């Protein structure tokens, strides 16, 4: 394993080194220590390597990730794995606001809680949260799945396009155009697979499914007075 001490090596150098690894690299396991809440750590990785980050990390950790597996042994700041394309980003602690924002693919696992707007504008990423999510999660979500083993804050799924939301605990309130939907065997199987893949304990039979009522897709003439 390659260990990089961020109190000695500048972050840009670390990111650059990880980004420039050749396709056939043998250096597949990395550990970053003394990270002290740095922003934009381990971003833009495109190779199937594993990066372990020891300690709490700042904003945009694992952003734009492709192929790599990133594990944060701590908490993380705003915008975890924003615009993730593929691969996996896992946080052992809590994540701050806008985790997985605009994510297009791959898997994000937050073992603790996530803050507000988790999965905002997600476009295909799967997000599994072991704890609860804050207000306005899955805001304007377009595709992918958000699995919440705990509770969801106010206005869940506001202005949802598509995307599937599964919540095991309580939902404080649903946002505009987000409705509860029937849990079909197809969705149950998908949820089971997601929980298993994320290694998160949850009882699929206790989850409720939420999705878009698809009423905001088009302008409705009955609403003309509102404008």
């Amino acid at each position, binding site marked *: 394993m390659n260990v990089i001490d961020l109190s000695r090596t500048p972050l840009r150098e670390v990111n650059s080194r990880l980004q420039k690894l050749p396709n056939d690299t043998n250096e597949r396991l990395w550990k970053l220590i003394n990270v*002290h*809440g*740095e*922003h934009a750590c381990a971003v833009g990785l495109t190779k199937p390597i594993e990066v372990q980050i020891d*300690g*709490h*990390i*700042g*904003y945009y950790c694992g952003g734009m990730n492709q192929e790599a597996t990133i594990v944060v042994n701590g*908490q993380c*700041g*705003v915008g975890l794995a924003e615009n993730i394309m593929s691969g996996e980003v896992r946080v052992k*602690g*809590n994540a*701050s*606001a806008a985790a997985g924002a605009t994510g297009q693919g791959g898997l994000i696992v937050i073992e603790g*809680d996530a*803050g*507000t707007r988790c999965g905002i504008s997600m476009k295909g990423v799967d997000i599994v949260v072991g704890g609860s999510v*804050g*207000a306005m999660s899955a805001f304007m979500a377009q595709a992918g799945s958000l699995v919440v083993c705990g509770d969801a804050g106010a206005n869940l799924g506001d202005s949802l396009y598509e995307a599937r939301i599964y919540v095991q605990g309580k939902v404080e309130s649903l946002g505009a155009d987000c409705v509860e939907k029937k849990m079909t065997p197809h969705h149950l199987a998908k949820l089971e697979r997601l929980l298993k893949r994320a290694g998160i304990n949850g009882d699929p039979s206790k989850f409720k499914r939420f999705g878009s009522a698809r009423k905001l897709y088009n302008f409705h003439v009955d609403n003309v007075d509102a404008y």
Partner: protein
Amino acid sequence: MCGIVGLFVKNPALQSKLGAHLETMLIGMSERGPDSAGIAVYHSPVAQGRSKLTLFNADDAYPWRKLAGDLGAGLSVETDVSQKGNHALLTAEASESKVIEWLHANRPDVRIMGYGKLMEVYKDMGLPGEVAKKYGLQKMSGTHAIGHTRMATESAVTTEHSHPFTPAPDMCLVHNGSLSNHNNLRKWLRKQGQTFDTDNDSEVAARYFAYRLSEGASLNEALEAGLTDLDGFFTFTMGTKDGFAVVRDGIACKPAVLAENDDWVAMASEFRSLAYLPNIEKAKIWEPAPATVYTWSLH
């Protein structure tokens, strides 16, 4: 953009390190605010019957000793003054209102940065680390302290518009965000007898909370009322003589992180500022929820 930090010490054994820790926290917010910085530190209370004021004049050679002498003669009281950069720390054997009245009448060129029995306030231009060094933050002991770093985006870099705002004795407020109903609130507060030093929206918030507290509200009640009456974006951190508070608006888009253990409570705009606090690895760390009031008290 700006950065906020606050530290509230629960374990008296750590009081001697208050300034040193706040300095590290403040430096952590350099990128969020490289233009100017301000600090309010609660330490060294003055004796009963005395008051303590932090004063400012841009001239490094301002005759502070003469001011103290004149004030002493004018009010027939004992005074003491020490200069720190372009600030001066004045203590007098008189109530703060008497001292302020005298200063307004006789030294209109001096700005009062903060007053009370224990709070000291310093604001200056430059990188947070330079400001902390200039005012000797590292050596300051005490129970709690609040800091602010500013990146000016919409108005000039002046000490006048810098945080913390200090609307009442031993009370200070720092704000990250912007208020949209500050003009109406200012009008309303003026009717309630509040006076304003600047056109700044954050000063309106500070005076709003000062007004609520002066009407008998608890710190908690004042902040709860603010959630209804203040419209806009805010993460506030507030200090009173024995209290420390954090509150964010209902949308909570201005960042904030809280951390707490048995020894201290710390607040910062970003985790970077908390990363070097003692035993941070084992502290409880969380993001303050929207529209939720968090308060701590020394008693």
